[in-house]
Each structure stands twice: as C-alpha cells, then as structure tokens.
C-alpha cells in the first residue's frame, strides 16, 4: 500500500538559500508524524510545498501514490491536504459553525442564500463524529485557545482533508490542553486521517508521534520510530552535536532588592482588571520565573513594570524609587532592560536595518548620541558586535529587521537588551522561536547576568525554561500568583494545576519561599484570591 504522503527528493531553493535539499518524507495513512528541527531547518518550507504554497524546485509530491502538482493551497485542499497554522485564522465575532463553513457555505436558491441549518447540521455532525467537545453556537472570542484549535481542525475536516498539517500545534496550549490535543490525534488517526505536525520540542514529538523525521539545515537527517529513540538522541540529530539538556544553575546569594511590586492592580485596554493585588520582590542575582498560560495577566504585569502601561493602583519600586508616573524613558535610563513579548510589534522597527534597531531605546544616550546628534558609526559597531556575539544570521548590519527570521530577530533583541548593562532584565519569552543552540547560549548569558548580581524577571510559556533557570517560580493565573514554588522540586503536573488556577497543598508552596526571607509579599499573593476556596 502506498503511503498517504510521499514527498520524494524535494529541493526548494530561494535566492541565495537552499531551504530544502533533496528531502524525502513518507507518512503512512492513519499515523501521526512529527517533523522536528530547529528554527530555519526547513520544516515549514517542506510543509508549504505539501500545502501548495510553494512549488518545489525539484522533486515530486505523491498522495496515495498519485503524483500531484499544486499551484495553490486550493489545489492542495481539493486533494485532501489541510493545514492548521500556528496562528488561527478565525473570525472572532462569528460562531464556531460559521467559521467552519466560511468560504465553503452550503447554499440554496442557486447560491444566493447560505443554508444556515444545513451548515450548522454538518458542523455538529462532524464534531460528533470525531468526539470534539465544542459548542457550535459559541462565538470564537468566547472559547479557549484549545477549542479554537479544534475549530481549525474542524475547518480542515469540513473541507475534506485526509492529511492534516499542523504548525507547532502545542505552542499556545496549556499542558492539559496539550493532553487533550493528543486525544484528538488518536481520534483522528483512528478514523484514518493522517497527521503531520511541525515541532521543535523533543518531548512533544516523542509522546505524540508514531514516527519522527528530523530536519537539519534543510536536509532530512533521519526518520525514526518514536519508540526507538531517546530524547538525547533526537536532540543530537537536531543540532548535530550533543546538547546539555539542563542549564546548570548554581545557588546564588541574592543581593539587594531591585524590584518590589506591592498590591499592583493593572487594567487591560478594555478597562478590565487583569492583574489583581499582586505583590512580589526581586533581588539582584536572582531569577524569578513567571509561568502561566498566555493571557493571564503576564503581559499587563510586564507592561506595568516596564512603563508601557499605567498601573491602576499599587506600587512598583525599582532600585528604591517608586516608578508610579515615571516614563518608560526614565526606566531605560535607570538600567531596566526589556525583552518584549511581541518582537515584531515592539522589539524591532521592522523597516529599519539592524544598525538603526540596535539603538532603539538608547537613541538619546552616549555613545550613540552626543548633543542630540546620532553617531551612526558607533551604532554600526554596536549592531555588529551584537550580531557577532549572539550569532544573528545573516550577519549583515544593513539587513532590515523584517528580512530576518523570527528566531534571529529575537536573538538580536536579546543581545541588544543584555548588552545594555542592565540592573534588571525583564525578559518575556526570551527564546521564543530560537533554535536549541542559540537558546542554550541565551540561557548561559541569562545566568551570567544573574551571577553578576543582576535581577531577572523571566516570563515564559516554556516550562522547562522557567523551571530550569529560575531561583523561584511564580505561576500566574487570572491576574494573581496561584503559587510561588521551588522550581527544583515542583513537578510539571503541579505547575499545570497552578496554571489552571488551582492551588497546591501548602507544602510545596512554602518550600518555595526559600530565597525570600520573611516571605514578604509572596504569601499575600498566594493567599489572596478565590483560588483558596476553590
């Protein structure tokens, strides 16, 4: 029997770049296949070829043994290939069933009227067949990210997809939602669907996939059955050398309090309170990790600390000075570095080259500016040194930020902020989209800053990252810390529970206050809140 998907000798060249070099990929019907690799390894390119977004320079794509030639995703969809992008393409104010049928609505009256009843019926039938627990009449805006993902899957199924491509499907999910997604995989494969998912997370590929194909530098390094391979072996295949899985943290004596947040309340853009009475203290030489599912107030907390958003009430003291009413400029001047969540929106000016981006935030300070005049020579030197130290590719200071891949954009931002010689680093998802080799380097730099006595507030959705690096780990849910735990003793399940808003029994929470004498602030935040009663 022919494999459901058979890509044979796929080569895809872009000007100056070979993104895929003679890649073979065979995926059996009814199996889950993980496409694993670092950023820039060519995973997405390969899938875009399969989805008809790119035409391969060489090579053929066969579905069930039939050679295919896709001019556009439309052709791919017609041939039964569906793709679920990392960022969902759903219309928020519309309902689930409306989103599913959008673009392929059943019509009556010769195409003039959408047959709403039939459409809804079809969606209900589909979601029941696959055991999806989604309310067809709920609005997209009102459902969870995990449910939205299922709507995307339904969309693909509704269009007749037999092969589902998912681009980093777990990136936006909680650990529990990830488990549910794996359940969905089982359901789909039982019914004969084939799933290919892109990932750069080893654990995920091992637990969800039947087979794993590792890409490196656009080349297929090997395809292995997930039962026959270890984490370390996979990691080695990805980066081509052995990597240390856990960054080495050594105990560190905490210094003076650098950042103190007291009873902080922050509203979001709609005026809804999303950070509630939050208090904590961060010392020099300490990394405080903040874990949590995106959208639980982390963004607003960070914005209030860094001066991008006014606090509704409460106080943020930085190096002994209250920051209430102080500008962002003032905070930068006082040595606060900030790696923002959204690199393309905030962290970089997309149309500027790296020389110009290298001084973003320092555009009024020596050595880049003297007497109001910018010194482009010094700026260029700075950009080039960041590019070199942080391995930004391509190593071209004149490249516009938008021409860089996401991981390289991130490396440049992190480099710029770390080289600011800061007292406090507020790092939001510092290694998001960055490949393993560079992640390791960024982690080392973060630990170096810590050993230099700098304070680090690390907000990340990568559990292993916050867990591996932090001295203390705060878990945020619904605008407050549901727990501050010792990352070396806490389990992933416990963190998952905290992320879901449930509290742990007191043991593990108390154990966490270790670096925080007198437990100031922390207890208030754990106790404060409805979670205690829950």
């Amino acid at each position: 029997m022919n494999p459901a998907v058979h890509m044979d000798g796929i080569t895809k060249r872009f000007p100056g770049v070979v993104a895929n070099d003679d890649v073979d990929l065979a995926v059996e019907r009814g199996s889950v296949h993980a496409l694993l690799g670092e950023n820039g390894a060519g995973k997405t390119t390969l899938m875009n070829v399969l989805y008809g977004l790119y035409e391969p320079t060489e090579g053929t794509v066969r579905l069930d043994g039939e050679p295919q030639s896709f001019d556009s995703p439309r052709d791919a969809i017609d041939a039964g290939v569906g793709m679920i992008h990392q960022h969902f393409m759903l219309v928020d104010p519309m309902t689930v069933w409306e989103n599913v049928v959008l673009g392929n609505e059943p019509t009556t009256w010769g195409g003039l009227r959408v047959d709403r009843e039939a459409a809804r019926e079809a969606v209900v039938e589909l979601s029941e067949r696959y055991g999806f627990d989604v309310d067809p009449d709920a609005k997209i805006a009102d459902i969870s990210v995990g449910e939205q993902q299922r709507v995307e899957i339904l969309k693909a199924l509704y269009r007749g997809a037999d092969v589902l491509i998912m681009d980093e499907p777990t990136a936006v999910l909680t650990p529990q939602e990830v488990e549910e997604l794996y359940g969905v995989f089982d359901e789909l494969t039982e019914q004969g669907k084939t799933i290919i998912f892109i990932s750069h997370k080893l654990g995920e590929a091992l637990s969800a996939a039947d087979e794993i194909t590792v890409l490196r530098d656009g080349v297929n390094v090997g395809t292995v059955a997930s039962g026959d391979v270890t984490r370390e072996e996979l990691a080695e295949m990805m980066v081509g050398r052995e990597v240390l899985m856990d960054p080495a943290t050594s105990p560190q004596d905490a210094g003076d309090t650098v950042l103190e947040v007291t009873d902080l309340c922050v509203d979001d853009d709609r005026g809804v309170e999303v950070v509630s009475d939050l208090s904590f203290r961060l010392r020099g030489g300490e990394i405080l990790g903040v874990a949590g599912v995106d959208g639980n107030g982390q963004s607003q907390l960070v914005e209030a600390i860094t001066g991008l958003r006014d606090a509704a009430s409460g106080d943020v003291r930085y190096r002994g000075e209250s920051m209430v009413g102080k500008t962002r400029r003032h905070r930068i001047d006082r040595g606060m570095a900030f790696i923002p969540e959204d690199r393309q929106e905030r962290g970089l000016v997309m149309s500027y080259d790296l020389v110009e981006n290298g001084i973003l935030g320092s555009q009024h300070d020596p050595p880049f500016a003297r007497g109001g005049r910018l010194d482009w020579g010094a700026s260029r030197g700075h950009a080039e040194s960041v590019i070199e130290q942080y391995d930004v590719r391509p190593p071209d200071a004149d490249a516009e930020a938008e021409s860089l891949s996401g991981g390289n954009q991130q490396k440049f931002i992190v480099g710029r902020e770390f080289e600011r010689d800061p007292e406090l680093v507020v790092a939001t998802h510092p290694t998001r989209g960055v490949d393993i080799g560079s992640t390791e380097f960024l982690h080392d730099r973060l630990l170096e800053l810590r050993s230099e006595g700098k304070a680090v507030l690390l907000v990340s959705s990568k559990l292993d990252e916050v867990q591996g690096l932090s001295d203390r780990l705060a878990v945020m849910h619904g605008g407050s810390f549901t727990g501050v735990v010792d990352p070396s003793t806490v389990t992933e399940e416990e963190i998952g529970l905290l992320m879901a808003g449930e509290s742990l029994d007191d043991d593990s929470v108390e154990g966490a206050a270790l670096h925080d004498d007198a437990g100031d602030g922390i207890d208030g935040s754990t106790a404060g809140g409805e979670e205690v009663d829950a």
Partner: protein
Amino acid sequence: MSDPDADRTPSVLARLVAPFVDRSVAERLVISVAAILLSIAVGFALVLVSGRIAQCSTAAWTMPFTGLGFCYNPVEVYVVLFNGALGYPFAVGEPGLFNAGWTPFNLSLGLTLSETTLLIFTGLSVAVAFRAGLFNIGTQGQLVVGALATALTVLALAPLLPAGPIAGVVLIGVGTAAGAVGGGIWGAIPGALKAYADANEVITTIMLNFVAANVAYVLVLEVFRAEGSSVVATRYVPEYAQFRPWLFPPSSDFALLALLVGVAFIGALYYFVEHTSVGYDLRTSGVQAAAAEYGGVNAKLTTVRAMTLSGALGGIGGSVWVLMSEGRWMASIPDLGFDGITVSILAGNNPIGVLPAAFLFGILKGGALEIGFRTDVPTELVAVLRGLIILFVAMPEFFRMIGRYTGVAGGAGGAVSTGPEETAGGDGGETDA
C-alpha cells in the same frame, strides 16, 4: 510565527497596494516616468476630444491619415507645458537641440522657480508631519497665519530701523522667525489636541484652516487694511525688507536667495530626521508607534513637536510668500498648503525628494501660464492636464503610504509578517553544519 496564507491570499487592498510597496529607488524612478508618460497619453486623448467638441475657424491640428481637424494641438500643449515652463531651452521645429538665445534667467523659469520655492516649504511641512505618522492637512492655515505674522511684524518694526540693507537683513530674519512662530503655534494646537485630548488631527487641522483664513481676513479687513486699498490687504513691506529678484526679471517674483534658503531647509530637515535623536524618535513614531513607545519615545511630546515643526515650516512658507511673492499679506492666498500635501506624497515624505517634487509642480504651474499665453487651449483644460500628471505620478507613492498605514506592507501592522520563518531565514539553515 508566520502565516503563509496571508502572503498568498492577501485582501483586495493588499493586492492593490502590494506592487507599489518595497520598490527600490530605481524602480520608483521608472514607475514615475511611466506614470508621466501614461498621464500624457490620457491627457492627449482629452485634448483631442475637447478639441473636437470646441468651435474654431481653423484647425490647430489635423490628425495624420484621417484628415480630422482638431481645435487644440495636443503635441503643442505638452511641448509648451514643459518647454515653456523653462523658457524654451529646447529648439522645437528648428534645427539643433537647443535654442541659442536661451538664458536660464528668463521670466518663465523665474515663475516656475518661484512656485517651486514656496512649495518646498509647504512640502517639507507636510512631509515632517507624515514622517511622524501625522496627517497635517492644516499647512494652508499655518501658512496663512505665518504670512500674517510676518507682514505685521515687519510692518511694525520697519519704522524703528533706518532703511537700508542691514535693516533689510534684520527685518527678513525677524519676519521669517515671526512666521515660524505663528505657523508653529497654529500647528501646535492640533498637535496638543491630538496628544492630550485624542482629537483626530485630520479633522482639527482642516477646521483650523477655516479659522485661520477667516480670522486673518477679519483682522486685516477691520484693523490692518492698507488705506485706500481696494482689496483686503495690508500695506506693502518696504522693498529693502523683501527677497528681491536677483538675476531673474523682477516680474517673475522670484528670488534666488529664497530658493537657496529653501534648499538649505531641505538639507537641515534631512539631517534632523536622519541624524538626530529627536528625528529618530519622530520617524520611529511614524513607522511603528508601538516600537517607539518601547524605545522610550514620549508619544504625546513627539506628536506636539512634530506638529509644531510642521506648522513652523508652513509658517515660513507664508513668510516667503509675503516677502518674496506679494510684498504684503492679502486675502487671496493661493492653495500652497494643499499643494504641499501632494508634493510631500510625491516626494515619498522624504525631505530630499521634496526638491524634485516641488520643481515638477513649479513646471506645471509655469507651463500652464505659458499655455495660456501661447495657445487657445482654455486654462480649465490645462488644470485638468496638470491634475492628471499629479494624479498619475502621486498614485504609486500614495498606494505605498496606504500600504504602510494599513499595515499591508512592511513594518508596523504586520498583517503580513516577515514571511515563513524557516524559509525566509535559510539563515538558520546555515546553522553549524
């Protein structure tokens, strides 16, 4: 990170705008030249059609092969438009490429350059606001206020100083500064309204245009009107306090010195935008406000600053209009401020680009006058031809701006993100092999 579908299936707007975004300078030039040729082709047809409809005793032009006669000669119209605007440097219908008797210091070129000079200032005014992401539609009002401030200041100070060149230099300097202050204040008002009351600057600047025009009119009508004047105008400022035509015929109202001042302003503004910290703040706010905020740029202050600077440049345009063109403030002020918007768009909001853009406008203005002198083509039709050229030339740049502001292309909005992360990169592809 990326969603390739957005690249593949952009909205209608994106598809419309996309070809004009991210063009190199050379491509833009080619596009501009093609646009001019296309507009001439369309204008050619228009001249023919109206030439067929119009009544005349002898045909100005007979179409080859068909023998159809037309009242207006489209070839002549365009030859006169461009050649005439420069004072006929090119020999047409005579041997040789150039007219032997041509000198650059002729009346036609003077008129063209006079218009160019004024439009440099209003073009810069609009451009600097655009660069900060602000639509200053109020340059006209700022120019009116600046012009009045200049006229009144010079008239008030002139009697205090002994007439002569030194007084002239002082009066021109102080008068221009007064224009900058007047226009600057008039620009700062909508800037502050935008920054602190969230009032849309497009609306407020348009409204302030009317306020400026009418308040100035009433002031001059009731208080500052020159005795015995039949029009609503102030007294003339002394001749020694005006930019005097030099080399060019006096009737051209063109002073080379004023043009040089304009060019100096172009250079200064370019330097300001590209090489100063405040300029960096300003253009960063313009291209990506969220990143500017992240970089510690005070958005409110930058808005007020940019609008003040924009207004001041418009005000200086008013000063030059008074001190070079009219010699006094009068109620019928030409639409220099509004033309400045088109000049700025044409220039891609780049200070350097304002020079050729303003010159093209000057040519169209000077050429239109020539067509009036030399041919029977009605001025209304000439205005249509000018409009066509501007429309065609400005459109690609205009599309580009729409693209930027709606985030379809490059930068800010990021509706189209950087392209598939792994593919655009390839960079990562080279990771230690």
